Structure formats: structure tokens, C-alpha cells
């Protein structure tokens, strides 16, 4: 199915280097850029598997959007005792500034990146929801473009969904939420952001303006873009690739030089759409994750199609007891961390470390979650001329505009270290294209 393509791996990687397909990493305070190694063996998802996955993803993202709308207005789910108040107010992603604000068309999470793994028995498990600025869609997009170029015969007549229209999905969503038909921009913090390649590539492909923070300003509570010749143009939607706290030094982090002063007031007044909305962090907190299946039942009245990894919250006494007793078999995650940081495997700890972690959990139960380690399937990758098996996950992208649509592809990341279970690209590792069969 892809024998010819495998021979083109070097050519594809070389092209990627030319296009600047890189991933930046901040390690010990210094910025290092590295290539994001591409493995030519695709992850293939059958049409049947995909239909189920697609339904599950739509359902999950619809519930998460309903949750965000509820949390920033009536908080019915808290009043009805489904989600404890603590998990909302002490979440670092909860922004009180967003209270009462309904974003354009009522959508909070426009682009959701849902991280999944497939277990040995074929079930899909969600590991994490990313509702702030999930990155990575550009990698399979350009991989498809380049593999088609390097090996056209592989794709000739193959029943694979074309994934190169991701930018069109984004563009359609931006058109939908745009306010007053204003300019559409992707706001990048700049060249030294770890995903800068993606920002420029998506802007190019979606046909929108790539804006730097200094290009935007707020006057009379409206956002304007300063063009090359100092002309001004009203902005209707900003797909920002900058996290909430750096977006507006008047409302959030005072020292931020990246933000656009008074942007938040313009947004709160309904004069500009922000993709994704402010305050989404309250719904993709690792502690809130536990409640997502409950949200599906609560808001949609449906049984959740996708499974959560079995999760325990030390916040609840019963769970805490279980976690303290079964620590060596569990993986412990710090709810405030992301990008594969703050993840600890009980089985790797000696007695002293176990005791230390137990006391951490007892001291701040709200800060941790514990999960059972899932035996998820390994995927084949090429290591030199040899095929080896490695852990891999899938980041699926769901775009919520007029309708909720799942992009028929996704970013498959794998670990290069045979002993590692952490597949986050911030931790090194490579990626594959994801083929969804028609």
C-alpha cells in the first residue's frame, strides 16, 4: 500500500527541512529548534473505525462547548452538584473576567485537539482535551502535500480522505464567527514561538493575514490592523496563537509585551471574535477531564462514545485512599502542567520517592490526578532500515463553526525511545501522517 512511499522518506524529510518544518523547544531557558522527524509509515484508520471516532469526537467537543457556556453564565452543572465548585474556581484556566461573556455565535472552543490512544482491544481512549491553542495540524497537512509529490503512485486511486483542506475548515469557521465582516487574522507571538512554522503555513493556506502583536491596536473599543503603509483596517476575527495571560496587558499579565492593550474589553463588548475564546482552560484542566463523560450525559443526555482513561481524583476521599494504596500501578499527573511535563509513573519510583509523592498528594489533593496505565497499541516506525514498534498517540482536530466537524486526519506522534510512554512533541519524538480511509 505504501512500499514506494517508504523509499522516499529521505526526500520528504529533506523537503520538510527546506520548508522549515521545525519544532522549537525551550530547555533550561534557551530556545532550541529541531526538525520534527517524519516517519513515512502512515497510521491507517479504517472507514468503520473512523465513523465511530468521528461521532465520539463531535459529541465530546459539543459537550465541552456546552460546559464552557454554562460555567461562564449560570453554572448549572455546579449548582446541580455534578462538578464541585473547587474544580472551577481554583482552576488556573478559569478566568473570572469572562463571566457573563458569550462569544460570537456562542462558540468557545473553535479548534479542539483531542489526544487519543487505541487500546489493544481496539477501543479509543481520550487522554487529554486541548481547548486552548492545540497545535500540530500543519504537520500532517504538509506531510501529505510532500508525500503526494514524492510518491504520486501511492495515492493514485487510493481511497484516502484528502486532508489538505484543513485550512478551508478553519477559514469557514472564521467566516462564521467574524464580526462585522472585518479582516481575518492569525495572531502569532513571533518567530521564536515553538509553532511558528504552523502559524505562517496556516495563514498562507487559509488566505488570512499573519499578524504580529504590534500590527494590532484597539481604538474606540474596536480592533484594527495596521497595514504595511500604515493604513488601518477593522479586524473581525483573531485566530490567536498566544495564550490568554499574554493577550492583553491591561487585563492579564501586566508585563506582557506580546499582547494588544485593551483587546479584552473589545472582545467583551462583542466587537471582535477570538479563536479560541478566552477562559477555555477551565475545561481542559486535567482535573476537569474526569468530569467530561458526566458532561456528555448532563448536557446532551447521551452515553459517551469515547472512553476516558480510568481516572482517580485524590480530591475525593475514596479515590485518595485508592491512589495512596495503589500508587506503583498508576500514573500521576500534575493538573497545572501540560506538554508531557509533570507526569510521573508509579512503577518507576523507589520506596523513598513513593513516600514523597504520597505526601505530596495528601498535602494538595486537588493538584493531582491518577490514572491507570492503558496498554495502548504500538505502531510500526522505521528505525534505519528496520521496522520497530513504538508507542504512539493521535491528536484529532475538531473544528466548531456553523457545525462541528472532525478533520479526517490528525497528528500521530510517536516516541523514539522504546521505553518511553510520553509521546508529546515537546519531549522529542516524531510524527506520522494519519490516513483515514473512505
Amino acid at each position, binding site marked *: 500500500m505504501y512500499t514506494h512511499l517508504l523509499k522516499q522518506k529521505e526526500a520528504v524529510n529533506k523537503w520538510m527541512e527546506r520548508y522549515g518544518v521545525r519544532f522549537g523547544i525551550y530547555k533550561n531557558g534557551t530556545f532550541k529548534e529541531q526538525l520534527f522527524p517524519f516517519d513515512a509509515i502512515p497510521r491507517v484508520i479504517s472507514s468503520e473505525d473512523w465513523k465511530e471516532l468521528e461521532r465520539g469526537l463531535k459529541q465530546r467537543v459539543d459537550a465541552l462547548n456546552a460546559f464552557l457556556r454554562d460555567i461562564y453564565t449560570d453554572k448549572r452543572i455546579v449548582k446541580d452538584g455534578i462538578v464541585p465548585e473547587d474544580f472551577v474556581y481554583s482552576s488556573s484556566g478559569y478566568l473570572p473576567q469572562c463571566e457573563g461573556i458569550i462569544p460570537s455565535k456562542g462558540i468557545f472552543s473553535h479548534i479542539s485537539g483531542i489526544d487519543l490512544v487505541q487500546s489493544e482491544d481496539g477501543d479509543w481512549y481520550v487522554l487529554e482535551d486541548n481547548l486552548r491553542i492545540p497545535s500540530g495540524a500543519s504537520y500532517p497537512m504538509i506531510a501529505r502535500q510532500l508525500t503526494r509529490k514524492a510518491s504520486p503512485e501511492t495515492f493514485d486511486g487510493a481511497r484516502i480522505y484528502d486532508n489538505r483542506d484543513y485550512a478551508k475548515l478553519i477559514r469557514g469557521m472564521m467566516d462564521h464567527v467574524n464580526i462585522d465582516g472585518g479582516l481575518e487574522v492569525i495572531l502569532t507571538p513571533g518567530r521564536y514561538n515553538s509553532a511558528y512554522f504552523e502559524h505562517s503555513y496556516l495563514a498562507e493556506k487559509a488566505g488570512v493575514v499573519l499578524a504580529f502583536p504590534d500590527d494590532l491596536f484597539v*481604538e474606540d473599543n474596536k480592533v484594527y490592523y495596521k497595514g504595511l503603509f500604515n493604513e488601518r483596517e477593522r479586524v473581525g476575527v483573531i485566530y490567536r496563537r498566544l495564550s490568554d495571560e499574554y493577550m492583553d*496587558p*491591561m487585563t492579564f499579565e501586566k508585563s506582557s509585551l506580546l499582547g494588544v*492593550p*485593551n483587546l479584552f474589553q473589545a472582545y*467583551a463588548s462583542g466587537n471582535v471574535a477570538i479563536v479560541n475564546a478566552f477562559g477555555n482552560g477551565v475545561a481542559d484542566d486535567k482535573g476537569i477531564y474526569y468530569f467530561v463523560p458526566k458532561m456528555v450525559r448532563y448536557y446532551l443526555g447521551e452515553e459517551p462514545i469515547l472512553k476516558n482513561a480510568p481516572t482517580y481524583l485524590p480530591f475525593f476521599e475514596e479515590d485518595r485512599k485508592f491512589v495512596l494504596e495503589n500508587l506503583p500501578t498508576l500514573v500521576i499527573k500534575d493538573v497545572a502542567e501540560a506538554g508531557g511535563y509533570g507526569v510521573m509513573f508509579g512503577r518507576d519510583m523507589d520506596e523513598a520517592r513513593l513516600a514523597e509523592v504520597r505526601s505530596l498528594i495528601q498535602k494538595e489533593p486537588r493538584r493531582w490526578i491518577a490514572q491507570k496505565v492503558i496498554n495502548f497499541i504500538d505502531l510500526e516506525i522505521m528505525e534505519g532500515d528496520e521496522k520497530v514498534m513504538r508507542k504512539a498517540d493521535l491528536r484529532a482536530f475538531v473544528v466548531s463553526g456553523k457545525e462541528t466537524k472532525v478533520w479526517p486526519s490528525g497528528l500521530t506522534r510517536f516516541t523514539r525511545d522504546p521505553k518511553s510512554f510520553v509521546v508529546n512533541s515537546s519531549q522529542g519524538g516524531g510524527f506520522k501522517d494519519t490516513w483515514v480511509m473512505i
Partner: protein
Amino acid sequence: MLRCVPYPVEYQRVLSQRTSVIPHCTVVRSSDTFGNIVQTGYVADSHDAFMFESVGTIDVSKKRMPEALNPLFKYPTMLTNTDASMLNAIKYIGAPVNGADEWVVRLSEYLHNNFVYESGATSVTTTAAQAFALGKGVCQDYTHVAIAMCRELGIPARYVNGFMIGEGATHAWLEYYDGAVWQAYDPTNNRVVDDTYIKIAHGRDFDDCSINRGRFCGTAQQEIKVSLMVERVRKMSQ
């Protein structure tokens, strides 16, 4: 971004108020999530000074109405954290025996005896725990420490920025929730807040209610001058 208009609440009746800025620009009035009145603007042309002035007359009464509680004010923030020595102090002060009012008076008394007013010892980024360890600070620090301790005991508390008759600079105090009404207390002066105080803004801590925030592009050195005058025009009939 300016917060320089009295907080819109029934016990503060604004008779007149005017904000002016130099250089002139469009100033938009809106409110933030806490109901504080904010005014925002943008000056595109180069300038070497920016000035704002807020002038007005207000009628303040002492009577406060019941309000629903926003649970947000129960939870600590970066600036209103507690540490072991603050927990010890809480133990020393003792648990509330007769509701929040009585406890806040004792708390204020404790700070009055154990915390020294000294400007320059702390800055706008000093946390409650840091100020408490120093044992000194300004009204902002008194207020942060008091808020942190209230919240630790389960008494919802919020930070208030405002003016006080006879003071030449802005002042800060706390409001705590007694179960129905947000009551106000001034730990710096160890007294109840009455009609000689004008409330401008409230929030979880100082960061939510700064009087002015701004940003300029350029390499100039900067300096801020503040002057404030609060005078009684006439005594209103009760």
C-alpha cells in the same frame, strides 16, 4: 485603562463626574467583570506625557444592601496566599465565635499590634505571605494579609481600592461577606469604613482593581506623579 470613577452601588450616589485626558483621545467607558467602571483609550501620536484627571461630587451613605455571594472571593490568589506563620497567627487570634464581624475586628486589632506601616518596604508585587514575614508594609499589604486570613477561615473577602477624606493618595481596604452583606473594614487604620470613604473598585486582590494601567512604545524613562484631594463639600442630612 483607567478605574477612576466611583463604584456604581446604591450607597454611593454620583452627583457629577468628569474624566479628562491629555493628549486628547477617544475614551470608551465600559465595566469589567467585577462591575468596576473602566475607561480605555489609545493615543497613536507620539507624546512625552500622559495625564488624566477625574473630578466629581459624590453622596455616600453608610447603609449597605444584601447581595448574592460570588464564590470566587472564597479562594486564594497569588497575592493573597497564606503560609505557615500566617496560619499560626490565625490560631493565635482564635476562631470566630460570633460571626465574621467580630472576628474581623480581632484580626484588625492583631495587625494593628503586630504589623508596622512603612512605605518603601514592599512593592506592588509583594504577596500577603511576603509582607507578613516582613512585618511591615502599606495599606495594600495590610489588606492582602487580612483578605488571605479571612479566606483561610472560610470568610469570603475582597480587595477594595478607593479614597478617604484627608488622604493624598489612593487607599485600600477589605470587604468581607457576613452571610448577607459585604461589610467593609480598614485594617490599616484599624477602623470601620464609614461615609468618609469612597469606593472606586473591587476585585480578588490589587491586580484586579488598579487605578491606572498603560503601555507605551519607546525607550523613554518614565515617572509617575499622583495627586489626590478629597474634601467634604457639605454634610448631608441623615
